[in-house]
């Protein structure tokens, strides 16, 4: 690699720069180490759950005495505090758990592990802030956390719990369509969300063409979504970061739990590998829609296939106080098949290996090796047109992250990351008798490098600042023939490159800063600026995403997408933190956005970049959120007023037009009522303006057939969407050995006929007329699920 730096002129300087930056980063850290104030001591340790031994993410640790300092446990339950010698009280709190307080005399570095007991009296709602007023005091904005254990109560389509659909009930996060697990964040498209499962990017987060997400909530411990103000350790996508962490597994004893629903069943088993030292968790789910097909005696029905499954598995082992190893994986697949003529399957596989290490009392390190693969296979088994297409995107990813407590007012995070991407757009194979020719489309290889550093600085009692910088580079690597196109899509030149040669490099600094200022004990204002860069792009020319959508990388033609986001907000809790209110304003400017020329065909298209158009985007809006957090009755109201637009020279004569995800109003109301120890009732109401869409503004005839004339891109609106869901959960009698519960739900209670699609066509009964046909996917749908645990 060094050799190719020397031989390739020009932009490789950027790559060198990144590598130098990494060097400088370590130098700076070393400097901090030397200049540390003497006489301070460190308190650190791990916070875990008393019943399961699971580490607790985001527990609040507070030290009070002659000075006050605080910390929050990280993704591995680890915390670290630094303070002057003296007598203090140390308290650890986590929502849903009993607060632990303990007096402490600090005269040396000390390690204290906390074991918290669940507090069943509290009835915290689904979305929880880490501590009672964390939402006000933390400089982080644009962050929503979902407490996965408690989403059971929210009504869902067909009784399938789905974290991605619950997320869509929050302001600024919009559903990509009826029953769809895809989502839009602050004007971004679905491929602009970075979805991480135990740090591994998940490329296609949906099953069954979007109706279900790939995340089995049984296996998930913690879920955070960043709509803005992304911390510097995250990068690679424009609109949001969805950081999902899997359960580690019970370290105390073996347990099993599961559920039987209308369309799928789930089972999770967990237990210790070595008691209190290591544990494992395996969770699996499979749908049985195809079982209904099997009931048919007709062979053309019962020989069809349609199902998906997920397996989440994780194991961890704590070698000693300073070293812990984790291994986690996800495997999921959808399979569709029509008897012996067609087959179609797709899925993700991710594997994450991690090593937590404490270099010193102040320096926490995590090293991750990550593999991620998304692929699909299409088989046409009919004799003369027999073919099989295999397509994949594969990542090898290495990450080194450090957390460093400098003092009680500075907390440093820094690290490096390298990802090697391989995209195989398609390998077409066939039998000798087939009319289909074997073709192997050229793979594309890319290398993303990043280095980041950020400091959480407690300026004073009122003001907190998180500032940082992420440097990212992307290099398109050979082998292959690389084309350059002009603005009309004509090839200017084609250049062959050998394996490992650098074809094109891009380098981007991504500054991030968030500031919070506490006005009173219960209110604050915050502001943030974030730049995000995206180097991998999903090409989809259909109105919804499909498993065969094409991934492409930056190239000679495609440039990195860049988003600059400014946000400001007011945060306030009242009634002793029982109510939480926030108002956030955002403005986002996006560069190098991608659209297609009319008539672009993505299938087997080796020159797809010739059909792409590049332009800008802007999105702005206000998000209001009010939540009642405790008590028998709780819930929230989220409202978003927003605008999302795009501008392309070649579309709508260079005028700004609405992006398809533009929706003016978006409202969600969630209410949960715990009527008794056993019964819980809940309800969800959603309302939104229709999406921007292109409808005809006239018609004409071609070869005697009706064709439609479209005068303006996305100039119309789909009909407004609203829906009310209800559910009831009956908890079983408390029984130590075996526990079960029933969930009953009704989706779309008042049977609103929401438009899934609007089609224009000739009237089948009267060819002289055209008609508008609305397709509704889900009317009123009841569901029932039985859950158990032992």
């Amino acid at each position, binding site marked *: 690699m060094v050799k190719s730096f020397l031989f390739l002129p020009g932009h490789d300087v950027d790559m060198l720069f990144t590598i130098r930056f990494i060097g400088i980063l370590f130098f700076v850290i070393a400097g901090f180490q030397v200049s540390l104030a003497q006489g301070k001591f460190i308190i650190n340790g791990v916070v875990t759950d008393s019943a399961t031994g699971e580490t607790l993410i985001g527990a609040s640790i507070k030290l009070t005495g002659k000075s006050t300092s605080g910390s929050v446990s990280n993704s591995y339950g680890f915390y670290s505090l630094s303070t002057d010698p003296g007598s203090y009280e140390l308290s650890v709190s986590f929502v849903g758990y009993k607060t632990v307080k303990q007096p402490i005399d600090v005269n040396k570095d000390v390690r204290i592990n906390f074991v918290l007991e669940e507090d069943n009296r509290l009835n915290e709602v689904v979305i929880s802030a880490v501590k009672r007023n964390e939402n006000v005091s933390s400089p982080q904005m644009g962050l929503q956390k979902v407490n996965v254990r408690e989403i059971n109560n929210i009504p869902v389509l067909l009784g399938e719990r789905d974290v991605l659909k619950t997320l869509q009930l929050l302001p600024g996060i919009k559903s990509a369509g009826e029953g769809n697990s895809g989502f839009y964040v602050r004007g971004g498209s679905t491929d602009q969300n970075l979805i991480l499962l135990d740090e591994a990017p998940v490329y296609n987060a949906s099953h*069954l*063409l979007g109706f279900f997400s790939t995340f089995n909530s049984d296996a998930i411990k913690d879920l955070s979504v960043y709509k803005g103000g992304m911390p510097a350790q995250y990068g690679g996508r424009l609109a949001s970061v969805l950081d999902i962490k899997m359960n580690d597994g019970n370290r105390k004893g073996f347990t099993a739990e599961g559920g039987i629903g209308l369309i799928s069943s789930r089972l999770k088993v967990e237990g210790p590998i070595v008691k209190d030292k290591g544990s494992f968790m395996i969770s699996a789910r499979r749908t049985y829609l195809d079982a209904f097909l099997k009931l048919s005696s*007709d062979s*053309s029905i019962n020989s069809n296939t*349609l199902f998906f499954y997920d397996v989440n598995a994780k194991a961890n082992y704590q070698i000693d106080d300073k070293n812990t190893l984790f291994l986690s994986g996800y495997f999921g697949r959808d399979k*569709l098949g*029509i008897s012996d*003529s*067609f087959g*179609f399957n797709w899925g993700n596989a991710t594997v994450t290996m991690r090593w937590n290490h404490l270099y010193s009392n102040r320096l926490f390190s995590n090293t991750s090796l990550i593999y991620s693969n998304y692929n699909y296979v299409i088989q*046409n088994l009919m004799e003369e047109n027999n073919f099989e297409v295999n397509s994949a995107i594969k990542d090898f990813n290495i990450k080194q992250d450090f957390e460093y407590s400098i003092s009680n007012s500075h907390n440093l995070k820094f690290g490096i990351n390298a990802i090697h991407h391989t995209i195989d757009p398609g390998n077409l194979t066939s039998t000798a008798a087939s*009319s*289909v*020719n074997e073709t192997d489309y050229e793979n594309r290889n890319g290398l993303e490098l990043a280095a980041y550093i950020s400091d959480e600085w407690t300026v004073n009692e009122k003001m907190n600042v998180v500032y940082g910088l992420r440097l990212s580079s992307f290099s398109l690597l050979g082998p292959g023939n690389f084309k350059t196109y002009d603005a009309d899509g004509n090839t200017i030149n084609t250049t062959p490159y050998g394996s490992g040669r650098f074809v094109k490099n891009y380098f981007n600094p991504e500054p991030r800063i968030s500031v919070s200022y506490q006005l009173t004990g219960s209110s604050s204002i915050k502001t943030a600026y974030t730049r995000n860069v995206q180097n991998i792009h999903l090409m989809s*020319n*259909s*109105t919804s995403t*499909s498993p065969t959508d094409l991934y492409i990388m930056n190239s000679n033609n495609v440039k990195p997408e860049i988003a600059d986001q400014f946000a400001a907000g007011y945060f306030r809790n009242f009634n002793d933190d029982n109510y939480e209110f926030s108002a956030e304003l955002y403005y986002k400017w996006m560069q190098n956005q991608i659209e297609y*020329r*009319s*008539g672009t*065909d993505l*299938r*087997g298209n080796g020159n797809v970049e010739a059909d792409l158009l590049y332009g800008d985007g802007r999105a702005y809006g206000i998000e209001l959120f009010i939540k009642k957090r405790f008590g028998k009755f709780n819930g929230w109201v989220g409202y978003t007023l927003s605008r999302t637009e795009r501008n392309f020279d070649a579309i709508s004569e260079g005028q700004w037009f609405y992006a*398809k995800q533009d929706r003016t109003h978006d409202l969600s109301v969630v209410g949960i009522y715990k009527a008794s120890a056993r019964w819980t009732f809940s309800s969800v109401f959603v309302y939104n303006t229709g999406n921007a*869409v*292109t*409808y*005809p*503004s*006239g*018609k*004409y*005839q*071609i*070869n*005697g*057939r009706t*064709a*439609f*004339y*479209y*005068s303006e*891109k*996305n*100039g*119309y609106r789909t009909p407004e969407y609203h829906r009310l869901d209800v559910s009831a959960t009956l908890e079983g009698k408390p029984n130590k050995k075996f526990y079960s519960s029933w969930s009953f739900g009704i989706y779309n209670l008042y049977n609103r*006929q929401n438009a899934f*699609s609007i089609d224009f066509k*000739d009237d089948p009964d009267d*060819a*002289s*007329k055209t008609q*508008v*046909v*609305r*397709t*509704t*996917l*889900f009317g009123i749908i009841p569901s029932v699920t039985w859950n158990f645990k032992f």
Partner: protein
Amino acid sequence: MKLTHRLFIMAGILMLMFTGCEKVIDLELDNAKPLVVIDAGVSDQVENQIVRVSRTYSFTEPNKFNGVEGAKVVLTGAGSNPITYTEISPGVYRSTRFRGRPGINYTLNVTVDDVTYTASSIMPAKVVLDSLSFRDFSFFGETNTYVAANFIDPKGIQNQYRYIMKLKDKLEEDEVSDDRFNDGNNVSNVIFFELGDLVAGDVVEVEFQCIDRNVYTYFYSLNRNSGGGGPPVAPSNPPSNFNNGALGIFSAYTSNKRMAVIQ
């Protein structure tokens, strides 16, 4: 490849089994300023070549051919002299009898209200439609019959084909394909129109055209708007080869017809 999209439909059907339903609704649509539409072709058959000139009209009006009278239609490329078309009915213009020849670049000029719309198309080399055959497909318990066009694709040349299918003299399907996946092979391309219950004497006719790349893109895009060939796309006007903002297409094509009579 088109067949794979049937799988999407299948998954859709399964979801629809729950409650999905279709309803004809009223929708307020704008009435855009009318645009000129030109539907024109030159074939390799000795015949009167036809150019249809019309205007777009409101979505709510009954379907019609909204012909434009008094246009000037001139074709160059056929011999040394330009051919001027004569109007035989409102909006329908006819040439004298001649045949187009493969390899020739034809240019059509249509002048309406002092604006001239120009398009060019190169007639591709001819590929012969060898035969038609019937094919049965079972799809969730329902067996349907389709017609397939059988031909030999010439190797090493990029070919595009258009299939215009009539059943019992009624135009039912107009679709296109190319040889990206089967260059140089014996091809049997299924036309995805359900023939339904046929009785003896019913006639299925397929006109098989070889078309240039722009014409292929035009019809591919036109069909995608109406949901043909895969998951729905955000619709847009198909890319016309006429300049000055006219809609429609000018295609120089070779033509071959085959008929199948149900026994």
